[in-house]
């Protein structure tokens, strides 16, 4: 994984393989350990695992789908280059001396790039050429190294250079070590292509040979152009251009920021050797939108995120890194946490399995169900008799649960289509009262009843003023979205929508008798709204127009329009209620946003302070239990020193500090206060104190000061 990106934070470097072998624990064991209610943890683990696999595969498919067209165009580019090399049409002759180069702009979300490059090089090797080498900036500090890497990756041999003599010597015996220059590469290439011509089974695939039997191009991918040392790059390109007649080279520059960096890095003398074509990948926000669309807003995944968690993930994406990959990682974390912490997550799975699992539930689990907030609310709604049943009779409860689970599924079935409908209607309104992106709408809905939201009201008002054609178009799109849905309610909704549309149609067939004056008096200004600069103001004025016209009788179109909107409103009210209102929603919805935030968006400073303030938080040791403010004298030295220093002013007298420390520690050693050597400073205590202080200094809480020799200055404010 590349450690340079807008989204890098702390990195986990996996221990080496053999070290892992020592630990016999499997994932599952890790999962089970310390997760409450062990008996159904296997099931939960399996569920979690399967679900994650599904998500993973889906997202990867999605990624490929998204990258498809740009990758294809790249492949075409390479093919074209390798073919024009042989054809001798005028244009390509004019460019014969230039190295074909693809500038691939990928955006600043660097961690997502690896995947792209991987698939790119794979595709290239399958369909165009076996000779592909990709290099990263951090492994080529000097020209020599870059050359070495490229040669190694193309020829997979050890390349010899003057440095690290003995290492080279030893390896030289093992296999053929060649000199580090492009001429050797040339020679190798010629022999290699010869071989492929005569058809000896080389390491290259048949497809490659088929594509261009004579001269498969040699592709060099520079993964992160910005990070490269310009001098190195320039020299390398200069060298390559000397061999271009003999060696069909081509480059691919991976660019994170903007194509103009090429011009910043390379002088004209170098760029004039390149024949650059530009390829722009789609922006990561679009990418995220699709991911959310397929992953979050899809009923087939039983696991859901509640508003807060989703908010956290999205804001991490938007504010800190543009990395889709990290977003998905976040979802994975939430998933794991959910199944780990919530015993009832056994029910969070496909319908049949869920119903089965309900039957498996033990008494303890059912008790948990009874404790659920949503269930309590539900129970209170029932009449007394039923309530007793629910609270006492396990089998009955199980049946009820099954029913509730089904309801929950129904709710989801209806929720998403309705959401999409509403979005299609509102997303084109001026100033986007309910947000441009569907995810914003979704967030609103997750929070509370959307119809109580005044934005919703204003949106409805605006909708009430839509011109006929616009409205019809939107409604039709809604109908299309509803096409695919299975559930009964939606089907009926679609039918209803269908005939309202029909009535609109026949309305303008019979528009003759309806007084046209009114209609175009409304529609015509609305028609030309689009051209106007400040839409909002115009809408306002129109609003007033409406108010004034309230008294007058409405034209049939208006009547119909209001009906339609009434209908939509009804749909929303019935289906877009927030999930918290649903019973047993805790089963599917992961709620603890704090955990996610803590894990994904760490705050080192605060955690250090937490550790120093209450060490028990990290080293769960009973002896450290204290009531707040009091220093447990058993705490590590640095904690004690820290606590003591909080009580001091801007300048701390080291000796007093030492004294205080000594008293605390000797209390810890349990020698009684009145004994004479209590709080006496011996060498050991002194040494420990010094160590602790220097640790604090290292952490940047204090620093030595010139003002008083035996004092140190505090760098943090406040205290206890």
């Amino acid at each position, binding site marked *: 994984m590349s450690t340079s990106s807008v989204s890098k934070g702390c990195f986990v470097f996996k221990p080496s393989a053999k070290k892992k072998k020592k630990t016999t624990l499997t994932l599952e064991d890790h999962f089970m350990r310390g997760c409450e209610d062990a008996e159904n943890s296997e099931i939960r683990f399996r569920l979690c695992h399967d679900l994650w696999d599904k998500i993973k595969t889906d997202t990867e498919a999605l990624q490929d789908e998204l990258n498809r067209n740009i990758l294809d165009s790249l492949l075409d580019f390479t093919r074209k280059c390798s073919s024009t090399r042989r054809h001798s049409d005028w244009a390509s002759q004019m460019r014969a001396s230039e190295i074909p180069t693809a500038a691939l702009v990928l955006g600043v979300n660097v961690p997502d790039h690896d995947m792209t490059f991987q698939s790119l090089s794979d595709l290239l090797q399958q369909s165009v050429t076996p000779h592909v080498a990709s290099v990263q900036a951090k492994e080529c500090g000097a020209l020599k190294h870059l050359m070495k890497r490229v040669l190694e990756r193309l020829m997979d041999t050890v390349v010899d250079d003057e440095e690290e003599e003995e290492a080279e010597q030893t390896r030289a015996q093992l296999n053929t070590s060649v000199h580090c220059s492009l001429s050797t590469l040339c020679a190798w290439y010629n022999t290699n292509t010869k071989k492929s011509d005569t058809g000896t089974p080389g390491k290259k695939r048949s497809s490659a040979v088929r594509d261009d039997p004579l001269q498969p191009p040699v592709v060099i991918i520079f993964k992160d152009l910005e990070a490269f040392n310009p001098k190195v790059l320039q020299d390398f390109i200069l060298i390559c251009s000397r061999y271009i007649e003999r060696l069909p080279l081509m480059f691919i520059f991976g660019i994170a920021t903007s194509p103009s960096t090429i011009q*910043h890095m390379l002088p004209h*003398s170098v760029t004039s050797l390149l024949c650059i074509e530009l390829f722009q990948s789609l922006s990561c926000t679009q990418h995220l939108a699709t991911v959310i669309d397929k992953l979050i807003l899809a009923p087939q995944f039983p696991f859901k995120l509640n508003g807060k968690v989703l908010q956290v993930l999205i804001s991490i994406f938007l504010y800190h890194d543009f990395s889709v990959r990290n977003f998905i990682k976040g979802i994975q974390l939430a998933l794991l946490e959910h199944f780990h912490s919530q015993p009832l997550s056994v029910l969070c799975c496909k319908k049949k399995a869920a119903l089965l699992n309900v039957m498996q539930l033990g008494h303890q689990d059912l008790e948990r169900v009874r404790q659920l907030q949503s269930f309590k609310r539900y129970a209170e709604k029932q009449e007394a008799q039923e309530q007793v049943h629910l609270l006492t009779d396990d089998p009955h409860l199980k049946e009820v649960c099954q029913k509730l689970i089904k309801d929950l599924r129904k709710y989801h079935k209806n929720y998403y289509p309705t959401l999409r409908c509403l979005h299609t209607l509102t997303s084109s309104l001026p100033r986007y009262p309910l947000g441009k992106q569907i995810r914003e709408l979704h967030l609103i809905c997750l929070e509370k009843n959307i119809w109580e939201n005044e934005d919703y009201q204003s949106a409805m008002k605006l909708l009430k003023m839509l011109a006929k054609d616009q409205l019809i178009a939107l409604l039709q799109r809604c109908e299309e979205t509803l096409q695919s849905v299975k559930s009964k309610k939606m089907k009926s909704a679609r039918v209803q929508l269908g005939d309202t549309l029909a009535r609109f149609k026949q309305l303008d067939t019979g528009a003759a008798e309806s007084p046209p004056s009114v209609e175009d008096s409304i529609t015509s200004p609305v028609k030309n709204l689009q051209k106007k600069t400040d839409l909002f103001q115009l809408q306002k004025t129109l609003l007033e127009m409406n108010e004034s016209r309230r008294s007058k009788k409405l034209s049939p179109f208006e009547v119909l329009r209001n009906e339609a909107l009434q209908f939509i409103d009804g749909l929303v009210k019935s289906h877009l209620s927030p999930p918290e209102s649903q019973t047993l929603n805790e089963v599917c919805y992961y709620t603890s946003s704090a955990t996610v935030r803590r894990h994904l968006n760490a705050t080192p400073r605060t955690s250090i302070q937490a550790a120093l303030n209450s060490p028990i938080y990290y080293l769960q040791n009973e002896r450290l239990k204290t009531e707040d403010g009091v220093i447990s004298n058993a705490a590590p030295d640095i904690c004690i020193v820290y606590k003591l220093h909080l009580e001091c002013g801007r300048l701390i007298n080291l000796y007093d500090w030492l004294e205080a420390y000594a008293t605390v520690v000797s209390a810890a050693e349990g020698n009684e206060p009145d004994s004479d050597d209590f709080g006496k400073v011996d060498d050991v205590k002194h040494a420990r104190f010094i160590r602790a202080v220097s640790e604090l200094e290292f952490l940047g809480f204090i620093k030595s000061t010139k003002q008083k020799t035996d004092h140190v200055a505090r760098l943090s404010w406040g205290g206890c």
Partner: protein
Amino acid sequence: MSKRKITKTNVPVGECISQVQEMLRERLCHQRLPDRPEGVEAQHKHLLELLKRTAVHGESNSVLIVGPRGAGKTMLLRCVLRDLLEEKEAQKSLLQVHLNGLLQTDDRIALKEITRQLHLENVVEDKVFGSFAENLCFLLEALKKGDRSSSRPVLFVLDEFDLFAHHKNQTLLYNLLDISQSAQAPIAVVGITCRLDVLELLEKRVKSRFSHRQIHLLSNPTFTEYLDRVRTQLSLPDDFPDDKFALDWNASIETLCEDKSVEDVLQRHFNSSKDFRSMHMLLMLCLSRVSVAKPAIKPADLLEASRLCLADANANMLHGLSILELCLIIAMKHLNDVYEGDPFNLQMVHNEFKKFLQRKSNSMYNFEQPVILKAFEHLQQLELIRPVDSSSAKTQREYQLMRLMLDHSQIMEALQKYPQCPTDVKQWAMSAFG
């Protein structure tokens, strides 16, 4: 066509020409030794004496030949050696070791070289030596038990002597000179250098062991001598196969040297530099123009040659610049005038240029920043401008401080010569302060 016919008809001319070319080229390019050293007879005698004493009577010695580049130091030495080796026993006994400061860049390499030149590789094989001195002594010992009981004299020639002084604590020099002081083996150390202050480079202990003999070759001939030298360099010897041609040739050289314009040209060169090399270059250029078509050096050739030699390279380069780059240079010049030659960066230059465009430019075209940047880069690449500090990696190119490597007159001259330079640009350049 006509020329070709000529070559066909009288071949001997062609023959002679190629003979001339060969002979003179050997003189001018390959520093063929003259029969007798001109102008340095005294030094020649002195050095010959010294070396003879070593070669024949086995006395150790050390001497420095000091003189500016192209003054004929190496030639002098080689002449001396040639004359020295005419003596029987010198030829028999004397061993020579030629070292060059350019090649033997440290003492380890030098020692290897010495061993090789004394043909002692097989003797040394893979002995390990405690110190450098030990090793050197061993080598000389090995010589001792050569054919005769007494050891053979060795002549060490150190070309680019000053470079040896930069070796790590001057071990080689120390040991050689030390040996030359103590009467171990008879060696002569001859240093050749162009640095007059070379003795200052030597460490005290090394200096003290050096017999402060120096032979100075400060060649400042009078112009007549210079002229003679030219003549002798060009004229053919008597043993030239075709006497008639030789006579004609020498006569033509005579007339050439009489010519007034030629004299002026030579005078100019004489004033700029008096050494052999530059003269050789000049004559070489003349010679190269001699062909069957015109089997003699005409004054015109000399003029042409001197034009080539004295051409101002910077002006030549300026001539090839694009108008935009030229404008930038003018802007820089103005900046230099305004800020008394403080360094400038691209932004300032661009500003200056923009000012010009706003004020009075109908011909020039307003370019984007990137284009300007490219032009600026090109100028930097040609080293017409130099960054003030070398740490270029840290700062952006637009803000890197630069200095102009050209002076006022060069720019103006270039502007005059520049093909179809717009007048307003010219005026801008002329105008004081931007």
